[in-house]
């Protein structure tokens, strides 16, 4: 007997279902997606008494089997399909002790599918504080099942739950509610037409719009002896069903579940008074937002710098250790640099998910939705759009996925379409280097111009998101049911284990999901940049050497050497006091010779790049970006950024033939770059133009892919790409023309 028991965990949102799952499986869990849709699928293995193993599936939270969203229909699809490999041998309904009545509605529905169903009553530790007493034995009898009283916070009751799961074969599969009671004539007819089918299952097939069942639905529609009812009639019957279920539940709880309100203590009311207060509510929310930004942009810079250094060192080490050749170059400059570009975002992503998961676990997120709903509505957004818009400051990918909680399709679509305007972390390196280059140092009221510029860019992004939402809301003609329903759960101290798992999982899925694309692009980029077809490319060394002999180094290289030497001289005399003039001259001579060699190598590299595949592509592209104030090199960086924005700095690093990704060096090289007219290429006009372009353009393949998946059509991502890019181009052009 080696067959694993299939267990499905199902329950209302906010019942601590995930905590029960974590307690049962520990770290032996796996998170993926259901095939074809982006609903998260969590599975794990649990060891039961007597060496039996259980395969546990954590289904998305739902209030009932009458589904209103993609996440919820997953549960129905599974429970109706006996051929699914995950079809449960036993279902565990997780309920929270305070909302037992409401939770039992789902319990009775699942029990009626004739699946052995165990009831796990969670948060038992709150019972005495809430004045609740329960007669478990009597309730087991009424519901015709086994009950486990669980407290995931204290770790109680899990063993009992495991015992019940192991003994699932002894559970009754008799339904709680006789389906024919809903409408005797109608269900009588249905049973006659399909004598071998379970009535409640047929009923769900008729009422639910779930993907895979269309075939069975056709079968029911084709049955001549039986006529389908209209939508209104079906709804009336669903209403009747709900009333009957509650009658059954009230009856079951009458003698078994008692609440003594005299003994009930709660702090929900008093906390709500502060957190949803018309002044303090917003103040607290903005204080929390500030804290999140501080963490993402300040605290995470330390681990990010460390990662950056480590990867630069690793790349150097590879080059020195491995024999020189194409493969080494690919490893050091293509693959390792690519992986570094992904890993560097881990601290920010982890911090963001840490905060989001803390806010969600504690119950505060629902209050934010409550506070913001009315403010967001004039823009065609919902209170629930706030979460994606905040998440968007880290990365638009999880943000677009977070829109799934918005029930109203129009509000959800608008949120998806405008989220990419919020300043994501990939824009940050681009902004930082451009600000350092073109915005003068100095301060206004104690705030530096550079910090103010960065803040302004964030505001522009957010403002643009809100503004375009408003426009979309005006022009889009989409009819959708407007149902806005948010549960306000009791406040809880987040469980460390849950938060840690969430951070771990989300970070992992970012690294492996988005990472693949970034890695692929850096390899392609490296290849296109280090290969060419013309003689100019292959003979670069001779050509450049001849030119240098005939005409000397370029002005650019001369400036570079001169600046370096003057810095060096100042440093030398400052560090070694009383150093002799001769020693200084000697030292400078050695240094100059060294620099000339380096300048030569760089000129060869940049000549090669200019005549590589990517160089030709950039030259062809140049007329298009000239009105924006860019040359062909920036043009390439912009072009490659359409795959992912963070590629910008990396591309420029490659183009300016700087060996490492160290930003200070790239910055100096960029500052020394001259335009044909002899002025610095990166000036205020072209810098602002670039920043605006990056603020507005849709330059992220992964986001486009996720929008396609979430909207189930290419129409929306293509619209997003076209509109945002044209808008970015025009604003950047106007800004450059005015400023230059």
């Amino acid at each position, binding site marked *: 007997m080696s067959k694993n028991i299939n267990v499905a965990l199902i329950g209302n949102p906010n019942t601590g279902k995930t905590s029960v799952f974590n307690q049962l499986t520990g770290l032996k869990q796996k998170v993926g997606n259901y095939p074809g849709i982006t609903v998260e699928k969590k599975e794990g293995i649990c060891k039961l008494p007597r060496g039996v193993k259980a395969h546990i599936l954590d289904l998305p939270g739902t*209030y*009932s089997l*009458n589904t*209103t969203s993609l996440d919820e229909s997953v549960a129905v699809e599974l429970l109706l399909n006996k051929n699914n490999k995950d079809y449960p041998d036993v279902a565990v309904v997780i309920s929270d002790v*305070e*909302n037992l*009545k*409401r939770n039992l*509605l789902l319990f009775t529905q699942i029990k009626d599918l004739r699946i052995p169903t165990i009831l796990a009553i969670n948060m038992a530790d709150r019972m005495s504080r809430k004045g609740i007493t329960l007669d478990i034995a009597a309730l087991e009898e009424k519901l015709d099942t086994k009950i486990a009283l669980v407290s995931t916070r204290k770790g109680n009751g899990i063993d009992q739950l495991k015992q019940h799961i192991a003994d699932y074969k002894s559970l009754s599969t008799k339904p709680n509610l006789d389906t024919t009671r809903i409408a005797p004539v109608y269900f009588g007819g249905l049973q006659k037409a399909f004598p071998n089918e379970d009535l409640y299952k047929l009923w769900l097939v008729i009422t639910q719009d779930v993907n895979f069942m269309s075939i069975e639905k056709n079968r029911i529609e084709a049955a001549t002896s039986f006529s389908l009812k209209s939508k*209104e009639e079906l*709804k*009336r019957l*669903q*209403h009747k069903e*709900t*009333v009957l279920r*509650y009658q059954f539940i009230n009856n079951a709880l009458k003698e078994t579940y008692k609440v003594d309100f005299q003994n009930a203590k709660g702090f*929900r*009311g008093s906390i*709500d*008074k502060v957190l*949803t*207060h*018309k002044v303090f*509510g*917003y103040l607290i929310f903005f204080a929390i937002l500030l804290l999140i930004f501080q963490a993402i942009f300040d605290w995470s810079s330390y681990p990010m710098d460390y990662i950056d250094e480590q990867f630069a060192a690793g790349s150097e080490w590879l080059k020195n250790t491995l024999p020189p050749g194409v493969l080494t170059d690919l490893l050091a400059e293509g693959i390792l640099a690519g992986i570094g570009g992904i890993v560097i975002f881990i601290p920010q992503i982890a911090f963001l998910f840490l905060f989001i998961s803390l806010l969600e676990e504690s119950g505060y997120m*629902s209050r934010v*939705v*409550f*506070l913001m*709903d*009315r*403010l967001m509505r004039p823009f065609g957004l919902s*209170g629930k759009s706030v979460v994606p818009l905040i998440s968007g400051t880290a990365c638009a990918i999880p943000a677009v996925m977070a829109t799934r909680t918005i029930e109203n399709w129009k509000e959800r679509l608008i949120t998806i379409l405008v989220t990419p305007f919020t300043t994501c972390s990939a824009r940050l390196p681009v902004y930082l280097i451009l600000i350092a280059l073109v915005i003068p140092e100095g301060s206004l009221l104690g705030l530096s111009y550079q910090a103010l510029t960065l803040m302004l860019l964030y505001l522009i992004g957010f403002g643009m998101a809100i503004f375009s939402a408003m426009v979309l809301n005006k022009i889009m003609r989409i009819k959708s*049911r*407007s*149902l*806005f*329903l*948010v*549960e*306000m*759960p*009791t406040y809880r101290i987040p469980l460390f284990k849950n938060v840690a798992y969430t951070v771990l999982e989300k970070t992992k899925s970012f690294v492996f999901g988005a990472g693949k694309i970034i890695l692929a692009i850096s390899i392609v980029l490296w290849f296109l940049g280090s290969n060419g077809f013309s003689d100019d490319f292959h003979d670069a060394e001779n050509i450049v050497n001849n030119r240098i002999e005939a005409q000397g180094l370029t002005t650019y290289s001369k400036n570079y050497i001169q600046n370096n030497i003057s810095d060096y001289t100042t440093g030398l005399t400052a560090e070694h006091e009383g150093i002799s003039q001769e020693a200084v001259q000697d030292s400078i001579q050695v240094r100059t010779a060294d620099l000339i060699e380096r300048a030569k190598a760089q000129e060869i590299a940049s000549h090669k790049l200019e005549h590589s595949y990517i160089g030709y592509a950039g030259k062809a592209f140049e007329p298009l970006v000239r009105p924006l104030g860019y040359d062909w090199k920036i043009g390439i960086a912009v072009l490659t950024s359409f795959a992912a924005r963070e590629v910008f700095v990396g591309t420029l690093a490659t183009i300016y033939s700087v060996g490492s990704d160290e930003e200070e060096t790239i910055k100096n090289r960029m500052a020394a770059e001259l335009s044909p007219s002899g002025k610095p290429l990166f000036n205020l006009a072209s810098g602002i133009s670039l920043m605006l372009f990056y603020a507005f353009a849709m330059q992220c393949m992964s986001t486009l892919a996720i929008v396609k998946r979430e909207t189930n059509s290419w129409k929306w991502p293509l619209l997003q790409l076209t509109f945002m890019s044209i808008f970015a181009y025009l604003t950047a052009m106007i800004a450059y023309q005015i400023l230059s």
Partner: protein
Amino acid sequence: MATVADLVHGQKGVIKEFSEHTLPIKLLELGCLPGNIVELVQVAPLKDPIYINLSGSHIAIRRSLARCIELDIIEDTSAI
């Protein structure tokens, strides 16, 4: 006719019979059934949405939906 939207802070009411078409099933499943008690817990700063206790379920809904739920307001809360 009084609706949930007419409740003031802390006030309760008993839900009346209603026609099936007006309310989404999800709301019924959360406990919005004739005879059940609704209490207004909190109103958002801009008067909308509202936060109610629906026979034990604490949920927030928009005023437009609240206007569809008819009820008898309980004037004297000490009687409950």
